[in-house]
């Protein structure tokens, strides 16, 4: 971001919630006068240092971004500057022809072709919560279907075999693809080598019109799709004055091109919507149109919500994927055997064609010597998912009495979504383990919760056995952080943990050892996993070993990978991984961070010399392969030359016949820019030397997503599930395929419900962290933000007779809470069409335990979710406000 000429912060309050990362936008501003744009419902600490602040009503982001897209497409400079044209035609799928049966939201008044009733899932797991489903067959490329496989689809749990349009598994004709009923053992396709399996998946290259004139080509479709997103429409839908919107659009375009770049930063204010993935996709679409991807100072920065949460999705703690963004084996798809899994999930063209090597090396890391080519490397022992096991689905299941016990490590669900429902669900548990720094709301929910204090619930009636384990803090352990730019940095222990506090690794390691012992003599097939899993992480240091702390060196080595016949030989990168069991590697993307027993790269701290262009390659280590900008082939033109001297990053060295530059090239190092795609070939040979997006099957940036998204191939403006206004663009009010967990304790307000007329957004403050479990026990922090408040505009305050610091009642269909009013002109009413919509804001840091206590704001939120990723809609729902 330091290299950006313009930084757009939207869906994020970056200065407030990522103050340390915000040093880079501030450096860009001071060092070369970069413009900072903040687009947000509230004027925040980020707006305070922005050059342009654009207000918008919560939940109207796609209307705004779509407006910029329409502005760009109709702009003369964009249409005539050769940079944009070359980029568009060659680096994106603008020229690709889409199935003629595709119908856009413009044609069907707000829905895409293929909307059907949801009939997926298995009877054992009725918690997927879809209200509808798309059959995306018509969204596909005309001549050939292109898959994104399960990587995104399994998140949504609509990836069931036979229904999911994207998976190759549904397509007959793959010679190596087993039809059905293949037995796990003796299935020849489950044995290495898997080269033939991958080759058999290859389809003809998609059809294109490089002139972009064909009415079914992506560019023409998106041009029509966004044609009604005019500045006037933006003003009417978002409440942002037309002049401000145009200033934003002009500034973004003026700072894009061969010589200049724009970056976007977003955080959970884009994700926490029932169409959050589409908002991010919309920004990606815009950045692809502007050539702002894979280049210095460009891109979209996903600002993660916690330290190292990037690491937790990489490694991962997500239910729907295993290490390195491979799909978790699932009972819903044809994943019966390893061969089935690889057939369903491998993209045959592009770099993902190597997935069988990554998967087999992963299975070797789990089962060690027990994993052999004869037993499919233990694939049968690997757990499979049944449906949506994400946060909201799990609590819906818990509330239905389907969950016996819960281990909470670093979570505080007693203050989480629809908190009363979640606490009611927790009361149905047989046992609960809370491992945290303090006795949080979740540890004390049985005695401290409002419903207990009011006498509504009696502690004696709660049968849950609650265990509390004190946890270490980060400075008390050795370990790594993986930050938002995918960089691993090692940190050393600074102090010993007090008393009985134990690290999370200690807990997991000990629990695993005990479970292994418990199942050692079991004869049940389901326990084979525990019997065969490798679990050897004894610490090298005798003192640590005595304490039971596992060895971070061994854990990191397993993630990095090593050669099975010579464990002292570490893999130097994922290119060394094999599909025959000769390599072991838990996380292919982390391969290379620990290339030799005495070389641990996340511990490096050598900055580039000052004043010299570089990518800080000697500071920490970033996946993949220490690349700092992904898809950086796009920083060079078709011939491999930098687009401009100012934006030089990697380029083709014709003499040395390889890609070179400041960064590690994100490409096959010796694949020349004039390399032609080899028809019928698998892997990288299927892509020409001009295709930068090597993880896509066609090597292109997708303006239109033929697969991978379950709620549509293009972003469309939908209202939040609960909204104070009617969708002014389409008859369809909100996304037709959202997730709604139907539960009497989860009532929803109908659109424009007069009982809840105001838009509410929840957020965080710099002074506190999440539910406050790490900050409300610290007096230095609580005195800085001592009490829960609700931010309202003076206009709304006057209407309601509320004065600054008055107690106010805030209600949603789920609950009513109290907070002090903070009346401020930083909040404003929005004019939406002919209606005035008041925007209300509340930080959600408070709870009933700790030094500073306050009502739980999440009692107001609902269990509704984005269909792609099951993310809730805490950023845009409705409420009422009354003087208490």
């Amino acid at each position, binding site marked *: 971001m330091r290299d950006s000429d313009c930084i757009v912060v939207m869906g994020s309050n970056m*200065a*407030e919630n990522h*103050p*340390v990362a*915000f*040093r880079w936008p*501030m*450096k860009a*501003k*001071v060092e070369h*006068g970069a413009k900072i744009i903040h687009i947000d419902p509230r*004027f925040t*600490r*980020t*707006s*305070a*240092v922005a050059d342009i*602040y654009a*207000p918008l009503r919560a939940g109207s982001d796609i209307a705004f971004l779509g407006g910029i897209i329409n502005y760009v497409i109709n702009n003369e400079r964009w249409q005539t500057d050769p940079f944009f044209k070359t980029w568009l035609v060659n680096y994106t799928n603008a020229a690709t022809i889409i199935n003629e049966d595709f119908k856009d939201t413009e044609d069907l008044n707000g829905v895409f072709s293929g909307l059907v009733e949801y009939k997926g899932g298995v009877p054992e797991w009725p918690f997927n919560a879809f209200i509808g489903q798309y059959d995306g067959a018509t969204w596909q490329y005309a001549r050939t279907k292109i898959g994104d496989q399960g990587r995104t689809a399994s998140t949504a749990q609509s990836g069931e075999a036979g229904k999911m349009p994207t998976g190759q598994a549904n397509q007959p004709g793959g010679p190596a693809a087993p039809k059905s009923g293949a037995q796990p053992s003796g299935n020849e396709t489950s044995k290495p080598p898997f080269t033939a399996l991958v080759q058999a998946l290859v389809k003809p290259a998609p059809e294109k019109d490089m002139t972009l004139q064909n009415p079914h080509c992506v560019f023409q479709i998106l041009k029509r799709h966004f044609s009604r997103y005019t500045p006037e429409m933006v003003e009417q839908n978002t409440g942002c004055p037309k002049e401000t919107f145009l200033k934003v659009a002009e500034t973004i375009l003026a700072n894009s091109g061969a010589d200049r770049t724009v970056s976007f930063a977003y955080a959970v204010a884009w994700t926490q919507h029932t169409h959050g993935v589409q908002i991010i996709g919309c920004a990606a679409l815009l950045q692809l149109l502007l050539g702002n991807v894979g280049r210095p100072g460009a891109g979209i920065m996903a600002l993660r919500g916690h330290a190292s949460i990037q690491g937790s999705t990489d490694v991962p703690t997500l239910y729907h994927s295993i290490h390195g963004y491979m799909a978790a084996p699932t009972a819903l798809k044809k994943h019966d055997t390893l061969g089935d899994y690889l057939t369903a999930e491998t993209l045959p063209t592009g770099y993902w064609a190597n997935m069988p090597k990554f998967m087999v090396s992963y299975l070797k890391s789990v089962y060690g010597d027990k994993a052999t080519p004869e037993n499919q490397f233990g694939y049968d022992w690997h757990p499979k998912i049944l449906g949506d096991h994400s946060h909201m689905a799990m609590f819906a299941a818990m509330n239905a009495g389907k969950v016996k016990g819960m281990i909470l490590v670093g979570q505080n669900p007693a203050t989480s979504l629809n908190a009363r429902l979640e606490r009611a669900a927790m009361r149905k548990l047989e046992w609960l383990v809370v491992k945290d720094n303090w006795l949080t709301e979740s540890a004390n929910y049985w005695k401290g919760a409002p419903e207990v204090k009011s006498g509504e619930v009696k502690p004696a009636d709660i049968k849950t056995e609650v265990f509390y384990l004190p946890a270490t803090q980060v400075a008390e352990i050795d370990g790594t952080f993986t930050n938002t730019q995918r960089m691993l940095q090692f940190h050393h222990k600074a102090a010993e943990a007090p008393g009985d506090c134990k690290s999370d690794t200690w807990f997991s390691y000990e629990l695993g050892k005990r479970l292994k012992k418990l199942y050692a003599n079991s004869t049940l097939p389901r326990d084979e996993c525990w019997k065969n899993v490798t679990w050897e992480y004894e610490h090298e240091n005798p003192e640590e070993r005595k304490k039971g702390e596992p060895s971070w060196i061994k854990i990191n080595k397993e993630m990095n990978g090593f050669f099975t016949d010579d464990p002292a030989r570490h893999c130097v990168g994922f290119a060394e991984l094999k599909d025959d069991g000769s390599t072991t590697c838990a996380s292919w993307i982390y391969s290379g961070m620990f290339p030799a027993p005495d070389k641990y790269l996340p511990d490096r701290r050598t900055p580039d010399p000052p004043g010299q262009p570089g990518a800080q390659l000697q500071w920490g280590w970033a996946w993949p392969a220490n690349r700092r900008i992904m898809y950086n082939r796009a920083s060079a033109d078709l011939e491999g030359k930098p687009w401009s001297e100012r934006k030089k990053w990697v380029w083709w060295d014709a003499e040395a016949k390889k890609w070179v530059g400041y960064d590690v090239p994100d490409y096959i190092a010796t694949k020349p820019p004039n390399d032609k795609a080899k028809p019928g070939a698998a892997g990288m040979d299927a892509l020409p030397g001009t295709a930068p997006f090597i993880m896509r099957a066609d090597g292109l940036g997708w303006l239109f997503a033929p697969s991978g998204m379950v709620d549509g191939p293009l972003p469309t403006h939908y209202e939040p599930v609960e909204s104070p206004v009617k969708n002014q663009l389409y008859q369809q009010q909100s996304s037709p395929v959202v997730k709604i967990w139907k539960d009497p304790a989860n009532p929803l307000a109908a659109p424009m419900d007069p009982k809840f007329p105001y838009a509410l957004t929840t957020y965080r*403050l*710099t*002074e506190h962290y999440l539910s406050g479990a790490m900050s409300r026990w*610290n*007096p*230095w*922090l*609580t*005195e*800085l*933000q*001592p*009490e829960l*408040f609700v931010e309202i505009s003076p206009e709304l305050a006057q209407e309601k007779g509320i004065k*600054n*610091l008055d107690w106010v009642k805030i209600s949603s269909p789920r609950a009513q809470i109290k907070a*002090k009013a*903070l009346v*401020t*002109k*930083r909040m*404003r009413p929005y004019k939406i069409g002919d209606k005035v919509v008041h925007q209300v804001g509340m930080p959600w840091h408070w709870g009933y335990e700790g*030094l*500073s206590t306050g009502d739980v704001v999440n009692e107001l939120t609902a269990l509704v979710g984005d269909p792609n990723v099951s993310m809730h809609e805490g950023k845009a729902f409705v409420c009422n406000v009354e003087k208490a």
Partner: protein
Amino acid sequence: MAEPMGFYTDTTVCIGCKACEVACKEWNQLPSRNGGQTTLSGNSYDNTRALDGIHWRHVKFVEQFTDDRKDGRWLLMSDVCKHCVQAACLEVCPTGAIIRTEFDTVVIQSDACNGCRDCISACPFGVIDINPASGTAQKCTLCYDRLQAGMQPACSQACPTESIQFGTIRELKDRAQKRVAQLQQMGEKRAYLYGADEKMLGGLNSFYLLVDRPEVYNLPPDPQMPTRNLKLGSWFSVLGAVLVSLFGVINFRNRGAEERP
């Protein structure tokens, strides 16, 4: 004496994160008001309220919006002791507890302070107050202990956006003037330096880049030494003293005359 050291605070890049306040409290082990259990001030995001004996850094939040919101600013500024070259506190301190260090900063030595509060009323910026933990007057020391160890103050080290910069006054002034020129050139005509000039109490060793009048940030536009207001009064005192002594001299002379045999 080493070269004068101090702070330059560029308020245009302050994000109001209060990391400076927390870093200061942690390094100097300052207590919290009422153990951290306080109430909302209702004044924007400022719950620190003022500089005092236990708050040596204070981030100010000034909301400036027109009713139609066409114009709006949220001015953020981390306030601290100015370490004046002509320091009123130092001048009025009766016990000599307040000293000027080798870094040209002003430090209260707690063990020599008798808590008389003279410095509190003398400071034109209102930065000093009694720390109830020690019962003595306290304020920012510009991390004298860290400076002696070759480190920079805790607040400037913690500042994520380099709004608070620490260095030699000479270098800081140079940097600050360039930043003002840059802002002016980019259209921010209101940018200027507060306290970088020797005319203000001989120069403030903690000076600011501001974009509005000092009063908007609750800073005195023309801070004065307390002694200046006392000038006329002191002449009266001198005159009085002369008269008294003359009277005494006369008296003694007369007495002497009487006593003469």
